[in-house]
């Protein structure tokens, strides 16, 4: 059985748990707790450990999706998740400009620490006060080619984001093979 592992990260309330739940064939492990302190102002529950979801095809192919905890703490949990990941997607709530800075910090951190294929998915774009997609991209500091709109509550949208990410992995893989041959 070959397994691909994708990490879903992003600021509080960006839709990480929802994303994992939407695509998973299994009941996701629910580690959401009543939010305390500052987070409570934004939402009622927050993920304290991590989310895990899975999609299996036959007996030889499986996709594992891990959601990071909401509060931005780059601790051992992150290390474990990232260490085993093949790619990641950063979710940004497009209706919460207060979260853009956190998203930018996460992205800078990830770009600096790991060389993994990634995409930035902007959620909540259906909310009236959401910012236009390109401006969210600029605020987070991501290249326009790596930016896409995602609705974490809708399966086709989540699947499409995953497929694009997998295709990116494929392209990266081909490119690195080509450059290896040149050497």
């Amino acid at each position, binding site marked *: 059985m*070959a397994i*691909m*592992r994708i990490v879903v990260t992003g600021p509080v309330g960006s839709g990480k748990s929802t994303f994992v739940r939407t695509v998973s064939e299994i009941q996701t492990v629910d580690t959401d707790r009543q939010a305390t302190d500052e987070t409570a102002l934004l939402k009622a529950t927050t993920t304290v450990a991590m989310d895990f979801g899975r*999609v299996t*095809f036959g007996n030889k*192919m499986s*996709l594992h999706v891990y959601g990071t905890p909401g509060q*931005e703490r*780059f601790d051992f949990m992150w*290390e474990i998740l*990232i*260490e*085993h*990941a*093949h*790619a990641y997607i950063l979710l940004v709530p497009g209706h*919460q*400009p*207060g979260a*853009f*800075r956190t998203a*930018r*910090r996460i992205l*800078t*951190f990830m770009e*600096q*620490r*790991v*060389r*993994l*294929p990634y995409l930035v998915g902007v959620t909540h774009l259906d909310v009236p*006060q959401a*910012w*236009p997609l*390109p*401006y969210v991209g*600029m*605020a987070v*500091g991501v290249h326009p080619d790596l930016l896409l709109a995602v609705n974490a509550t809708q*399966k086709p949208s989540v*699947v499409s984001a*995953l*497929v694009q990410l*997998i*295709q990116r*992995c*494929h392209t*990266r*893989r*081909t490119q*690195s093979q080509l450059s290896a041959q040149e050497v």
Partner: protein
Amino acid sequence: MQGRLSEIPLAEVLKLLGQGQATGVLELQPMRYQLWWQAGKMVGALAPGFSLHQLMMSQGGVSASVLQVAMRAYVVAGSKSPFGVWLVERYGWQWRELQWLFHQQVVRPVCRLLGAAEARFEFRPRQALPLAHLTGLSAEPLEVLLAGLRALRDWRVLFDQLPEPASALVSRYQGRPPYRLNHQEWHLWEYADGETSLASIAQAWQVEVLTVQQVAFRLMSVGLVAELPLLATAKQLGAASASELTGDFLESLAQSLQQL
């Protein structure tokens, strides 16, 4: 584009509008301050006490009756250029005078607003420019930002937006910065190595960490550096090798997902 300045600082909003080559109006409430943009540059402002006409009368030595006559002629002529340009062409106004008015109208209030306690903002794109209230001059947002943040004395409202003492900086700009940086900014720019925390830079400089945070915020605001949170362990995280997954696997996984 909308929000509150307590969520995202005005400096960031201005930088984004510049970067996005925005045309339209940024409105701040409750100040009723309207900042007009064209192709990513600030071209004018309308606010109680800060309109071009009010400034011309209060600070430019123009009487109400002269202004009225000039305005009427401007309207009748159906001019498509800003009022300021028209004044230069028809009435022999000096650009120098307009520059001074533009500074009062745009640059000074924006600098002051960088430290504003709280305001709601909304950007409305593609609005017709109020030509009768424009000088025809424009300002580069990043230059205004740099000057405004250097002059800012009260940083209280920006406190939550400053990079953290435990963070390092990484460079976001190749080559020589396009702005004239001051001594401290240059010095910090050289420290954008992704390793040295702001706290240890402060120690090396023998200044308060807040000073370094403020200089870092300025460099971040003009897009020269980004904040990099540091892990307790600075080790490079070894990622699972992507080659572990074959091209065939990735292709069929994508295909299978699409059939869900």
